[in-house]
């Protein structure tokens, strides 16, 4: 089985936000929730770079470690998913996540959180694959259809790569070698304790 990852080649990202839009559309993500976002570092300065970021599906995921109800699980493809039936919306995963991936609908009282929503790597949730119940809670399950995440597939400059970690790292390395520069595989050290050696 593959160990799937995301890799954003920031030297290619043009901050078009197509990944953000595609994700929202594919999964009918409610208003106010963004499973994916594009952050521009050093905006307007020389060396500005944009990075598309979502849940990185960490190895030894911090969210899973701190969850008080153990609602997270990791699939055979190393995708970190969670059960909205178990989630109580406590916010701990948001405190622990290095990438700000967990999102909470503002339902209920005070400023309190509804059940957490995050990027599923287009792999749905614990419900049976490709069912309506799964779609309503977690969105489309493209992995079950043999497809990769929509964000990476849509990427106009192929900056965002999704797939087997070893293969996308190889593609990235080849690019860096050919063009002679690369700003790094953003988030990899933090998520996988392992960068891409350039």
């Amino acid at each position: 089985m593959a160990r799937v990852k995301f890799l954003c080649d920031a030297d290619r990202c043009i901050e078009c936000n197509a990944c953000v839009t595609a994700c929202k559309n594919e999964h009918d993500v409610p208003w106010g929730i963004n499973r994916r976002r594009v952050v521009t570092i050093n905006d307007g300065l020389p060396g500005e770079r944009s990075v598309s970021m979502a849940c990185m599906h960490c190895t030894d995921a911090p969210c899973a470690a701190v969850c008080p109800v153990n609602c997270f699980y990791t699939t055979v493809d190393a995708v970190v998913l969670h059960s909205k039936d178990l989630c109580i919306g406590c916010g701990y995963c948001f405190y622990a996540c290095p990438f700000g991936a967990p999102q909470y609908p503002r339902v209920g009282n005070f400023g309190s959180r509804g059940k957490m929503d995050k990027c599923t790597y287009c792999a749905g949730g614990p419900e049976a694959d490709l069912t309506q119940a799964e779609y309503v809670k977690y969105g489309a399950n493209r992995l079950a259809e043999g497809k990769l995440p929509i964000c990476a597939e849509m990427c106009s400059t192929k900056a965002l790569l999704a797939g087997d970690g070893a293969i996308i790292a190889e593609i990235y390395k080849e690019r860096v070698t050919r063009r002679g520069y690369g700003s790094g595989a953003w988030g990899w050290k933090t998520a996988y304790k392992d960068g891409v050696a350039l």
Partner: protein
Amino acid sequence: MNTAIQFVRAGAFALLLIFVAAAQPAAAQQAPNPTAQSVKEEQLLKALQPGASVSGRITIPDSHSATLIQPEGQDWRKFHQGVLPVIGGVAILGIIALLALFYATRGRIKVDAGLSGRTVTRFGGFDRFVHWVTASTFIVLAVSGLNLSFGKTVVLPLFGDAAFATLTGYGKLAHNYLSFPFMVGVALMFIIWAKDNIPNKLDLDWIKAGGGLFVKGAHPPAKRFNAGQKGIFWIVAFGGLIMSVSGWHLLFPFEGGSTVGDQQFWVNVHAVLAMIFIAVMLAHAYIGSVGMEGAFDAMGSGEVDENWAKEHHSLWLEERKKLAGNAPKGSVPAE
């Protein structure tokens, strides 16, 4: 003339060619190399101050998403999964062990003179109402809070994922809602009891005598509240205040510009203080019930035995008797 001009032109053109040819390699060297300029993740992470995060600009309306990587999340995880359970375990199991040891060696503290059968009003209805509003909500808050920290290791295996998550979900709701009566209770307690809890010289003598807790028959004099009770009072007042402030930050995330870093800080304050608070309250509950004969009546019926009052609050009883001499009995609660 024409030939002269043409000659000059040709010469100028040749010169230009030479310049261009000479400039060509230099221009090639200065071709923009994005590598030299681009921000690199590794540099950004290395340059980060503790607690800071890698952030940028974002075009979606959610400004909190502008944080790209917040490494302190992993520190929070280490604290929450590593340090906090140890603090909680030591504090709560430690106090239970101490109380068990105390009970084993000292036993139940009896009223030495025996019960007189005559009672005196120690706490009126409002005092007891405030106490029990605070105490009952505290118990729910403590149990639901402990469940968040230890539930998945202690309770989850007993009930299974689904039942435990449902239970914990109700626990979270109870925790959110009952925090408000708890806050009101702590505030009212402060208002009605603060004036009798101001430390004075008498407390020093009480502490020197160990409160009479460790020696049979020793009863250092005390007014309405002894030094031990005053300690409990101030722990509840200040502890309750900090629990309320920290909890407020968690009830209303991001209100007033609070960041994820602030929330990490406040949840740690809330959790650590809660562990200590629970440990202190276990001791308080012990001495107010099984630990001492006649003590529970103070908050139960509000009427304590006169001999109990004589032994534990001698000066207060004298004051009460003086007051009772001037006014009809039972009209004035313990003030």
